[in-house]
């Protein structure tokens, strides 16, 4: 089970729009800070890279309690690309909720649907 739950204000987003939603902390965390990132990821069988990323800035500082909610908003770039899957790799968007902690950080990663503007009209 993820340490976070997320509720986006919409299911589908267009380039240049501001993605917004609410993160709910699902379990107590010894966080130093909690921040949300939008990542455009590249993935092959052996490698994962981040092609573009933007963060919300710290939404919370210090220990986090279960049930705590954090609202965030992050703007997509105007030339944001959609997802694509091919035979040997894929490109996709994710919302990464990161709890910065001593030792290993805790992440909650969620799919984000970004479509070309011409398909959103």
């Amino acid at each position, binding site marked *: 089970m993820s340490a976070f739950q997320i509720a986006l204000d919409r299911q589908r987003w267009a380039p240049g729009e501001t993605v917004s939603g609410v993160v709910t902390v699902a379990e107590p965390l010894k966080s130093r800070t909690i921040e949300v990132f939008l990542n455009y990821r*590249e993935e092959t069988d*052996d*490698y994962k890279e981040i092609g573009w990323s933007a963060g919300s800035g710290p939404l919370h500082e210090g220990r986090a309690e279960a049930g705590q909610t954090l609202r965030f908003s992050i703007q997509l770039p105007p030339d944001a690309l*959609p997802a694509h899957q091919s*035979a040997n*790799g894929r490109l996709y968007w994710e919302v990464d909720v990161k709890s910065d902690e001593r030792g290993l950080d805790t992440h909650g990663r969620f799919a984000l649907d970004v479509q070309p503007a011409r398909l959103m009209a």
Partner: protein
Amino acid sequence: MTGLADLLGLRRTNAFGVSISPGQVERTGMVAVTVAVWQQAAIVGEGFDLGLVCTEAYDFTSHSYSSSYGSSSRRVTAHATAYEQWQPLDRTQPTQSCWFQVADWAPFSYRGSALSYTWEIIAREHRSGDFDRVAEQPLWVLP
């Protein structure tokens, strides 16, 4: 940027050439291609055709073993054709015009660290037992 000709070791030619308009197109959009044949006598291969090709470049880990150095692994880039459409050309025509439509499900142009998609229009003279001769133009495909 590595094109299909470089990947396949094809030979570029001065016997024919291609030009395209526009150089950037959205998926589902049309690309106009003009093929000019400058040296008809130099086109001696069995086939002469025109392609719209997207090449996928993807990184993977290559593992190897040698008795001297033991196991090793390194990051390498492989290539595969992600999309292609071909149509025949007439070598006797000094110029000919063709159209391609980019499929809505095809990849869009992308240059990444582990994964890239590169598009080009390529005119190809196929020669059995010899390197194909090619002329190409890059194309940028938007989502």
